[in-house]
């Protein structure tokens, strides 16, 4: 009997991470598109860092920062009652940071190619920034939103280094599918590894295929 837990944890992690990322990334991308602040290049660099940094670097700093052995980690643990190391909460937080560029970048580029006159037209009609963002701007970059959601989701599914370092591979709690594959291979248990690998492969293939079908307009043509 196969153990489905790692797959469920992977999916749960990906869903929670994607939802939170979407909520964070929309205002962040909007700010990046519109700001004239001098801090913009620094913020953009920080957001993009996970693209180039080995996940172990992020994992290492995470471990150091949130370990109950130091003052900050201890404070969070005692005052907020949240344990971020070797826990699902920690996995979510690390995944959010790690997948942030995959959500922010598409939304940012989607917003920045919209003509500025759309925003101005909405302003002249007495609409607030938020109304403009949600009623005018976002509906006109649905493709970018979808790309962001899917990339962030798929990237979270594919995480390995960060979740291994922060989560510590606790069965039923933080052991996600990608780690399970690694461990099954180490234990020479190839059929189990193959099972997890096949599921991950099919899920990510289907998700990405969906994006290309939708954004390429193939589905619309099919329905018509």
């Amino acid at each position, binding site marked *: 009997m196969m153990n489905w837990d790692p797959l469920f944890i992977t999916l749960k992690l990906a869903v929670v991470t994607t939802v939170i990322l979407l909520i964070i990334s929309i205002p962040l991308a909007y700010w990046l598109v519109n700001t004239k602040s001098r801090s913009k290049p620094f913020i953009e660099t920080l957001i993009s860092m996970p693209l180039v940094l080995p996940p172990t670097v992020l994992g290492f700093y995470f471990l150091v920062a949130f370990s109950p052995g130091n003052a900050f980690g201890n404070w969070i643990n005692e005052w907020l009652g949240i344990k971020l190391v070797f826990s699902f909460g920690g996995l979510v937080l690390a995944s959010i940071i790690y997948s942030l560029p995959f959500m922010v970048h598409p939304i940012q580029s989607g917003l920045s190619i919209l*003509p500025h*006159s*759309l925003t*101005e*037209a*909405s*302003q*002249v*009609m*007495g*609409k*607030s920034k938020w109304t403009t963002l949600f*009623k*005018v701007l976002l*509906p*006109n970059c649905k493709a970018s939103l979808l790309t962001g959601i899917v990339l962030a989701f798929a990237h979270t599914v594919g995480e390995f280094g960060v979740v291994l370092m922060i989560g510590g591979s606790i069965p039923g709690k933080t052991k996600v599918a990608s780690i399970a594959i690694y461990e099954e291979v180490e234990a020479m248990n190839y059929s189990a590894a193959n099972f997890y690998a096949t599921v991950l492969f099919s899920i990510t293939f289907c998700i990405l295929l969906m994006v290309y079908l939708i954004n390429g307009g193939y589905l619309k043509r099919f329905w018509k």
Partner: protein
Amino acid sequence: MIKIDIHKNLSASDGPMNLRIKCEIKKGELVTLYGESGAGKTSTLRILAGLLKPDKGIITVENANWVNTKNRSYLSPQNRNIGYVFQDYALFPNMTVLQNLEFASKKGQNKKVITDLIEMMELGDLQHRKPQTLSGGQQQRVALARALVRKPNILLLDEPLAALDYKIRLKLQDYIARIHNEYGLTTLLVSHDIGEIIKLSDRVFVLEQGEIARKGIPNDIFSNKKVSGKFKFVGEVLKLEPQDVVVIVSVLIQNNVVKVIADKSEVQSLGIGDKVIVASKAFNPILYKIE
């Protein structure tokens, strides 16, 4: 009455430009801003709409202060209640024509305004279509209608007809004239088309390098001589052909080319591309019905 007295340093394509606009516009007037590109016409509209902040100066509208940099008061574009038609129309692609108009309306505003505007701008058959499926002229009509939903007192038109072909342009000029009168608007129009300006506007401000160089009624601005012609048209010189003692001047009037015989001394100051008035007073024109 709109009183504008503002300064703004702009970085135009050919270096920095100092925009210094001082003018008064009477209620109900239709004023055209005319001038070369980069002279500051669009910037003036944007400052009046609140989309661009002036560095210094005052804007008052009907005795209400919109901008006063001395006491740092600044009315946001949301609160100015202006109708603005953008050069690219800025219709929202995610909404149908009707939804575009509905989005513009104020909270709790009577929907009758929208039905009236749809009827007036003849958008009935188009109201459930998305903007990108409409022709340029149709989009322009939607943009005009949308700018009027909030019942603004001031209408700003930024080269609204520049991208349209001649016939549709004429039709839309009629729409503009009609809404200007029917809604009692004070209208500011940016236009390059002299025929259009003469047809529509009460007064013209000629902008040169960020300043109003000349003001006046269109006929005075665009002709140096007073011609009391029985009929006259504005056109553009296409060709000058010297023939013995005279010169044949080809003039493009709207979409017709007309040949005019002129004296050599008369054409000395003329060049190809010059705007001219073709006028005549000594003969009787004959009218033939063609359509």
